[in-house]
């Protein structure tokens, strides 16, 4: 597992979440845990390594960058940091649990033909979604275009998935989008023909945390994404 899979965590200003995620990987994967890479672009006083030094030693590689390089740049750097063929991406406030069954999730990615990226559910959310544009509106409704063996083939999933590193390196996240990068990534993935699915019988826990100093709502990045794709709005139906 450690040669073949890297768990990539981009974190900012949520050191305790990141620590809990790292511990959950150890707890539920044991000797079969993946390599763990963490990239932290927070302010020095809010760093993962400063607040959770013990957990920081539990990861295989910790990269501390200049402040607020953004989710996209952070994830791209994580992609280029390792060379295992498979990567796991989650938010830093996800947790691996007994329902994640990470080894099995990776095995399903390998086993099923024509699958490049396989998500688990994110808590009770994170079901499969489709994407289409009509009248300059990007629609992202719940749904799948095919279901078999608890795998729903779709266009859009939550940010808790296993995928082939080379496929992600081809698509990459758009670094001008520090947030609001998620739908842009999956829209480009759809256009490129990336095969996406959700294993609906696997899940990560997701207890969303918005601590002080955490920069979430930045509408300027939504505007950049919309302009780039020539759409007026994004609707979740």
């Amino acid at each position, binding site marked *: 597992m450690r040669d073949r899979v890297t768990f990539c965590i981009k974190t900012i200003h949520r050191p305790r979440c990141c620590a809990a995620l790292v511990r959950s990987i150890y707890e539920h994967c044991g000797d079969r845990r993946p390599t763990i890479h963490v990239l932290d672009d927070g302010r020095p006083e809010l760093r993962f390594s400063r607040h959770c030094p013990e957990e920081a030693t539990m990861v295989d590689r910790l990269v501390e960058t200049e402040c607020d390089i953004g989710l996209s740049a952070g994830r791209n750097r994580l992609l280029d940091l390792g060379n295992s063929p498979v990567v796991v991406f989650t938010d830093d406030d996800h947790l691996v649990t007994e329902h994640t069954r990470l080894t099995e999730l990776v095995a399903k990615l390998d086993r099923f033909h*024509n699958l490049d990226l396989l998500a688990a559910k994110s808590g009770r959310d994170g079901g499969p979604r489709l994407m289409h544009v009509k009248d300059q509106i990007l629609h992202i409704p719940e749904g799948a275009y095919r279901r078999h063996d608890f795998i729903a083939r779709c266009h859009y999933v939550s940010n808790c998935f296993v995928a*082939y590193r*080379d*496929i992600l*390196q*081809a*698509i990459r996240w758009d670094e001008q989008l520090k947030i609001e990068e998620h739908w842009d990534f999956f829209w*480009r993935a759809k*256009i*490129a*023909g990336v*095969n996406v699915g959700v294993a609906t019988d696997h899940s990560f826990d997701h207890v969303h945390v918005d601590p002080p100093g955490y920069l979430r709502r930045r509408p300027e990045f939504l505007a950049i994404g919309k302009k*780039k794709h020539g759409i007026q709005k994004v609707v979740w139906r």
Partner: protein
Amino acid sequence: MTIELRDITFCIKTIHRPWACHRLVESIRKHLCDPKIIVVDDGRDHLRFSKKYPKTARHCQVIDLAEHDVGVGVGRNAAIDAATTEYIFLLDDDHVVTPQLHLDRVCLRFASHKIDILGVRQGDGGQPLLLAPLMNARRIWMYRGEHHRVGALAWCDMSSNAFLARRETIASLRWDPALKTYEHWEFFYRASRIEGLAVAVATDCFVRHAHVQAKNYGGLRGRARFRAMGLRKHGFHSMRYPGGTIVHA
């Protein structure tokens, strides 16, 4: 810098589709004033463009190659070498030029941006494509995508076969003479991924692509050994197409 029509030679390689070639030449002449056109023909003598449509051929510099079926690579290289203008505009013989080409727009953008090869759409096709190695560079993936975009101008790795470029750039890059067909991705792979040329597509400029499946042409085109040859040349064992189909060398 401005690019005028007199600075451009339209380069066409044709084989066994004289009617298509005639249609293309006439369409260029209809929409552009006194264009320079080079046609390279490596077909059988009785299927030559110059023989079937001598009146149309008089408006072109026709190079009837002595050897039959030298292939797309050799034929296009011959056209580029024969051109004397600063720029070439490559076309397939089953393209048709219409007012939607907007050649003035193409020229203006080429002159205003850092672009080495500027393609146009061909009907529904000719979308900007990217090329990425997969599986430790054993598979090449050709997929829809863009590096970046300014308005209708999208930078990418691969465009259609209808493009404007400096003659010198293409004369230096060249098509691989060994590839008689399936040469397209290989040409753009070298251009964008190896030579680092800037490739872009003007997504609001079009030629019509009216494919002609001539009886004597089909067999020359579907020769998978040339695809295998191109893949192996760059160390790939397979290719993933935009639709997801995988073909092996």
